[in-house]
């Protein structure tokens, strides 16, 4: 059992002057399940590979427990890793795959057999121990990869998108299974994913990365309720948050159909007059046209338990302007209708083309400084 500490860890790739991971400070507590999440190319996998020792650390350092492992080879770090494609040795049976590390460590045969059997039992692989990976289903292969990590009893588990090769249903099952295993073994775990649902459901804490920089590291409720900047706000949450432009005057933010008083702290931290208001799809009430923001329903997505309606807003002075979430900055005016996403009750009687009025719930609005993209803390 150990903590994992990254201090200013930086990684450059050859020929690229922007680092793939930029001065990352991160502390994973003993036994914690930390999920690294972000869009592709954000540096999350590189971070994991740095902890594993598969990538060098150009600046800064990494410690596991009290040991500085920055320059240690992978085998001396006492970690186990599960790769996205599982990296099972195709010419070895499941039994040999699981026991390979122990054999290299020259553990006694009895111990290897015992540990392998134990892991197989736990992961429901006993029947297939003598098969080769090619004869297994995707889910079984995934479990073999997990088994290979478990038998080592390592200080740290590193999981690199271990569920992305599974079909949707199996992914949900395995998600729960992995989370349960981690709780059972209480091994410090770093888990990389691009899937925010995995991140929010599995992790004790979630670290959101973008462009090699850590954006926010907090518990799932905290991340959802108090995103520190526009990027986190737009990345976490499905469907994505609606971001509207508004302006502040006399400590009051006025937007389409709402007015918000700024607290003193918010007013003092605001650098200009432009504010971006974030309103999640569930923060709206649908009413008659004329109340709140006038909108026309373009698409209705019925999920049964919920319904999402995608609305275009009518142009005009109080037209809400959605901002480009990938940059976290206001998008150029393209002249296209700007969609607002609203969650309503499942089986609600809305139809395409219907005109509605959308009233935002101003209490659940997130306020961001449009210049810096940072949250205005109240």
């Amino acid at each position, binding site marked *: 059992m150990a903590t994992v500490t990254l201090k200013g860890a930086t990684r450059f790739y050859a020929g690229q002057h922007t680092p793939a991971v930029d001065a990352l400070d991160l502390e994973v507590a003993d036994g914690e399940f930390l999920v690294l999440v972000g869009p592709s190319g954000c540096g999350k996998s590189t971070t994991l590979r740095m902890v594993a020792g*598969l990538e060098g650390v150009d600046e800064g350092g990494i410690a596991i427990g009290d040991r500085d492992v920055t320059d240690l*080879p*992978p*085998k001396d770090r006492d970690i186990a890793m599960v790769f996205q494609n599982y*990296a099972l*040795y195709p010419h070895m049976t499941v039994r040999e795959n699981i026991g390979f590390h122990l054999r290299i460590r020259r553990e006694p045969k009895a111990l290897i057999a015992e540990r392998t059997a134990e892991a197989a039992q736990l992961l429901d692989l006993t029947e297939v121990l003598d098969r080769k990976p090619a004869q297994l289903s995707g889910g079984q292969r995934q479990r073999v990869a997990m088994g290979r990590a478990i038998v080592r009893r390592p200080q740290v588990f590193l999981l690199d998108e271990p569920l992305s090769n599974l079909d949707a249903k199996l992914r949900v099952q395995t998600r729960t299974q992995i989370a349960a295993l981690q709780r059972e073994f209480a091994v410090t775990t770093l888990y990389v994913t691009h899937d925010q649902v995995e991140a929010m459901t599995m992790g004790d804490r979630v670290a959101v990365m973008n462009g090699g920089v850590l954006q926010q590291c907090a518990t799932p409720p905290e991340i959802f309720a108090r995103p520190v900047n526009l990027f986190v706000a737009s990345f976490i949450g499905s469907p994505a948050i609606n971001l509207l432009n508004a302006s502040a005057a006399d400590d009051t933010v006025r937007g389409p159909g709402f007015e918000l008083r700024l607290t003193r702290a918010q007013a003092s931290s605001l650098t200009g007059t432009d504010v971006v208001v974030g309103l999640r799809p569930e923060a709206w009430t649908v009413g008659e046209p004329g109340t709140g923001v006038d909108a026309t329903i373009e698409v209705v997505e019925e999920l049964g338990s919920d319904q999402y309606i995608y609305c275009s807003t009518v142009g005009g002075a109080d037209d809400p302007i959605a901002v480009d979430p990938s940059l976290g900055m206001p998008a150029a005016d393209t002249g296209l209708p700007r969609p607002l996403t609203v969650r309503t009750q499942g089986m609600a009687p809305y139809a395409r083309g219907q005109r509605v009025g959308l009233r935002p719930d101003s209490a659940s609005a997130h306020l961001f400084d449009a210049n810096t993209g940072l949250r205005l803390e109240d």
Partner: protein
Amino acid sequence: MTAQTPARRAPRRPKPPPGSRRYGPVRIVGMAVVWLFTAFNLLLLYWLVAASFKTPIEIFQQPFGLPLHWFQLGNPMRNYLYAWNEAGFGHAFVVTVLLVGAAAVSVVAVGAPAAYALSRLGVRGHGPLTSFFAIGMGVPFQTVIIPLFVAFSKIDLTNSLFGLYLLYVALSLPFTVFLLTGFFRSLPTELEEQAAIDGASPVRTFVRVMLPLAQGGLVTALIINAIGLWNETLLAIVFLQENAKFTLSRALFTFYGAAQYQSEYGGLIAGVAIVVLPMLVMYIVLARRIIGGLTLGAGK
């Protein structure tokens, strides 16, 4: 009363996708060329096998007829026995099997680690070194035979099977390294990383993880080299002078010179068959493997 439902049967030939013509002009011409080529080669093969059982008179008077004379005399294998015993093919066969076997195995044993290091270990200067091997493939060995002979004679390695073995290994290395480099490159990197995390040393990773995965490529390299070296004639002619050291192709060359004067055409053709048929059989048995190995590493 139960209704008899006829068992469903798949059509013998699944329907082709709409728009694809089974007998387009390209296809007809292509088929004709392929079949002509195949027929020509089969005829040649038939002629070779048939002639190897004939008397010289039969060979010239009924070139495409079935062999009769030696069968009537109850000595059908006469030509083969003659070639094997009188022309020294028996001895040459043993020499060739040993020499070619040793050389082919050595080439792969040296080439595989070299290719692995060049393609996977990030060795300093692996790019230029790989090109260096590729250049070796571009140099026809015929052009360096004379300097090679001079050099080898200085160190007393001419007229020596060991010398020829060294030459075979050295001259086969470029192609083998090139073939295996592509092969190793196509293997996934995660396996090496997993092996590193599992604590395997680079040597162990190579032997226990990468070599078994590269088995297909290694076998392909082995077979291609074996076939090439089995048929190799020029180096054997230049570097070997003693009958006792002759390889099959070298023995055939000598036999050809002698057989012309003795009209021993039956024996000569039997000798050709002894040289050609083992490789043909090997090719037929292993063809799928060879072609698979050659195209592996090309994709992905």
